[in-house]
């Protein structure tokens, strides 16, 4: 099947929505308020849906235990075909379900399939697998529920589990053993695991003793570096710690490093600390590209141009060149929370290359036909939805239509470089840009729009091409009618209700409210703060929904 055929065969958004409504009626889909990732979509298979949207956490009406019970029953009843389909898409599933599926495979005695699901889990979860088999509450729950006694897998098969764990330990990079010491300790204790060979004995020493033996074993480095550094810190303070860390080739992970500093009551932000600059430099050296992006706010008081340049180098090598999939919304959240000074510093070297990278990733999730059309009011420029537009513009053909009181104006593409330059602006600087680019439009607080022009414009668009709407306070029957033929409408405002439409995210804030039994008056502001963030998340989910829904259709003919 060619790529074009595959695209044509993708299950449509309207079909995913229809399947969700039917499954909801049958009681086999969770209502949106009990989904951890709230999406009114269904592949047609309740297990597949749960693996894409359900997490084992408290939701509006369900407890963690209830989610676990429901999830485990769905997983337990999975057919071999369903297990194979999910194994093929395991990277896109939520971690909670990858774990439940690994447990089901283990219960069935299918070690190969267990390995497949385990490989798709992060190392922390992989190392905790025996805990999930023997004492699931300790891995799945928090607080008092960790002590609850129950099992999901009827027979843990201790001997086989020990062999599997031996394999996991052998594959585990030593840096993960350093990071997840307690998990390995708990798992091996529950297993009554017998450590054999030099590397395993070193792991035993690291988990159950002071780590002095582990420090001599090269195969578990950087555990040795950590133990030596800890010793140096105890005896000689920060400068001795730096002497050890800077002479070692291996780097300890940032979490271990910060933990060590924390227990010695050393803060990277407090002035007067001995060797402070060296300690800060090592923090930059030890963090991975993703970790450093997530720590922008924490590090903001001492980030310098030079340190940002080193972080940018890491991002180039660790994300852009490897194509690593990192959570767009987390990066943007970190960037937005950072002080203006840091935002300005990291904008060009770090954020803009990442935004281009995200643009390409997202554009790939929106297959042709194009272009992607954005329709939004001319006088309400929401920076986050505008950023979404600019990010996609850098990777795919787009159109920007600005809705006015009279008519609609198509704006020549505004490149990401131009919008991006202003992401770190102060309020005044951003206003200056908006004033120079959009003139009086940004200061027109008149919320009446030309709905007739919307309908005319929509009729002229290809209904198979993606359409992104960011229309405030607009609920117009004629617009809904014009939207009916569209296949991919992503709405950043409240839903119109078209079958091919998906409501992404919007926020209303009460500015003023006064009311009695007989009347009320309120003033609201509407923003799409989370537009760019949620859009990336929804696109990613949508692709996997379509992929798995294809399997349901091809197997069953009729879907539900």
């Amino acid at each position, binding site marked *: 099947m060619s790529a074009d055929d595959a695209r044509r065969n993708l299950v449509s958004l309207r079909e995913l929505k229809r399947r969700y409504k039917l499954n909801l009626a049958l009681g086999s889909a969770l209502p949106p308020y009990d989904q951890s990732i709230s999406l009114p979509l269904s592949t047609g298979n309740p297990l597949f849906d749960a693996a894409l949207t359900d997490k084992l956490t408290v939701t509006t009406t369900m407890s963690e235990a209830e989610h676990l019970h429901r999830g485990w029953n769905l997983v337990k009843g999975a057919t071999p075909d369903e297990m194979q389909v999910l194994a093929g898409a395991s990277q896109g599933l939520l971690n909670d379900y990858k774990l439940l599926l690994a447990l089901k495979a283990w219960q069935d005695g299918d070690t190969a399939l267990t390995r497949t699901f385990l490989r798709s889990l992060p190392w922390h979860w992989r190392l905790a697998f025996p805990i999930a088999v023997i004492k699931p509450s300790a891995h799945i729950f928090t607080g008092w529920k960790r002590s609850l006694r129950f099992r999901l897998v009827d027979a843990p098969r201790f001997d086989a589990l020990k062999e599997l764990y031996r394999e996991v330990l052998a594959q585990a990079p030593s840096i993960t053993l350093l990071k997840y010491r307690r998990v390995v300790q708990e798992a091996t204790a529950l297993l009554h695991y017998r450590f054999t060979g030099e590397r395993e004995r070193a792991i035993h020493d690291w988990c159950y003793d002071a780590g002095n033996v582990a420090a001599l074993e090269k195969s578990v480095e950087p555990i040795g570096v950590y133990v030596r550094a800890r010793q140096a810190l105890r005896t000689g303070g920060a400068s001795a710690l730096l002497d050890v860390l800077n002479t070692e080739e291996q780097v300890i992970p940032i979490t271990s490093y910060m933990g060590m500093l924390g227990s010695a009551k050393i803060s990277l932000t407090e002035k007067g600390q001995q060797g402070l600059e060296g300690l800060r430099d090592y923090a930059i050296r030890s963090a991975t590209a993703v970790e450093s992006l997530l720590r922008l706010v924490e590090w903001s008081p001492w980030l310098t141009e030079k340190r940002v340049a080193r972080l940018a180098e890491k991002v180039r090598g660790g994300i852009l060149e490897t194509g690593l999939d990192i959570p767009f919304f987390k990066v943007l959240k970190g960037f937005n929370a950072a002080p203006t000074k840091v935002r300005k510093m990291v904008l060009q070297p770090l954020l803009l290359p990442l935004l281009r990278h995200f643009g390409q990733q997202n554009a790939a999730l929106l297959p042709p036909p194009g272009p992607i059309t954005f329709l939004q009011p001319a006088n309400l420029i929401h920076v986050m939805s505008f950023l979404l537009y600019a990010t996609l513009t850098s990777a795919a053909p787009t159109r920007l239509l600005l809705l006015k009181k009279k008519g609609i104006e198509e704006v020549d593409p505004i490149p990401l470089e131009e919008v991006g330059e202003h992401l770190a602006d102060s309020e005044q600087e951003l*206003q200056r840009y908006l004033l120079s680019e959009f003139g009086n439009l940004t200061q027109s607080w008149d919320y009446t729009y030309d709905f007739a022009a919307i309908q005319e414009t929509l009729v002229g668009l290809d209904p198979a091409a993606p359409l992104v709407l960011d229309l405030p306070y607009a609920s117009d029957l004629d617009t809904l009618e014009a939207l009916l033929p569209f296949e991919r409408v992503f709405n950043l405002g409240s839903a119109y209700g078209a079958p091919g439409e998906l409501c992404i995210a919007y926020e209303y804030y009460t500015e003023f409210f006064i009311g009695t039994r007989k009347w009320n008056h309120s003033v609201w502001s509407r923003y799409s703060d989370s537009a760019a963030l949620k859009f990336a998340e929804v696109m990613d989910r949508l692709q996997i929904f379509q992929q798995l829904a294809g399997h349901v259709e091809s197997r069953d003919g009729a879907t539900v």
Partner: protein
Amino acid sequence: MKLVGLTNRYGGRVAVQISWGKQLYFEAPEPPVDKILFLEFPGLTLPSDGGTAGRLGFYKVQDEMTRAIIAFLTERKQDDTSQEEAPTTAEGRRKKRRQINEIPADFWRLATLDDLLEVTNGTELRYVLTQHFSLEELRSFVQRRAPEATERLSEALTAPVGAERLAALEGVERFVDTVMVIGSIIPNTISQELDKARRMLDRERIRAAKLPAVSGPEDLALTRRIALLSELKHDDEVRNFLIKTAKAIKRVGLLAAEVTAFVHQVQKNKRVQEAAIWIPEFWQALEGRIELPATEKGITLDITNAREVEVEMDWAVFNAHRIGPIVSGRKALLVHSGDNKIVYYIRGERKLLFQVRSAPGGHLEKYDCTLTIAQAEGQQRLRRLILDVERIDALAHLDPDAALASVPSAQDLPAHHPIRRTVDTARADCRQARVLADLLIELHSGVDADIIRSLSRRR
């Protein structure tokens, strides 16, 4: 058309908003920001001139006024530069989109109080007048204009009742209204002047104290700062001074013991404590620098009613009774005990409640104190049961047999009882597990399961 408007800054430009919805800018030289301007658009009248808010509706008048001004300014600009009216090229459209409406320099000047009598929107800015005109300017205006207003009103009242009286009153309405509005803001302005004077004196006191610039702990001069605090009269100045001191403490990294001693000193001054009753910035700056050691030893405390909180520093936490050392920013249990509702913070999280609940006799030795959960029937029964409810609720889904076993009153149920039958169906069906949880919770507590479940969630 004559108007008054308050200037603001947008995008580095000075702007004036003369009505809801539109902002106008200025040709060079721009006026100062945050000033009331008198604006005169020569030859311009409202399209429905003479229309008042009463006849056209407030927003409509505003809208018409704005449209008229924008049309007037646009027309004037076109006369000057003969710009393209309906651009056909992309560049032309972009240029048009980027246009802003600018008021020429000879159309505005700084407003006086007397200008308010002449303009269409004279009383619109009544709430900001105190910030723009001094007490002396207001007094002088009222002294000059109030007699005139009463005189004009008296004259209008001499007209015979009917059409003549109506016309006469309409003629003086705006003038009297504006004068009286300006008169009515004088008491508020006096309060502001007093406030300003107190602030000024406090600032002079702070300046006179000549505190050293803080570059190390030795420069903090905390004793002098505490003495100075008790001299300050204005609440805002007290708060600002405290916050600045806290930030300086943070900057130089003063030892926790010394910081704690400083806060104790501050607390001794009741006047300062009153002024700083709500001062989050002060506590934020001192976050992690205040010691909150255990204050209690050997007491027995019933924690049935305790709830988990994230400790946020304030005076209440600082003065609370503490069992075990408390750390701000971390979780702890909070309980109000006894008839006097004494506040206790207990080091630990919610799971401590479950530990005490399952400890033999329902009490546990912790941090040199004895923590208990009410055991006797009728003694805070429902609060105690909430802990059981959570446990039953979880077990009904994870291990239905254990859920049944955890309810003493369910042990004697016959084999055919619906609760026992539900235990079997609950294993494979989470909806049945929910039913089992409901049945067991109601049997155990005697309260509707959804109600007690939601109470438990809130805790």
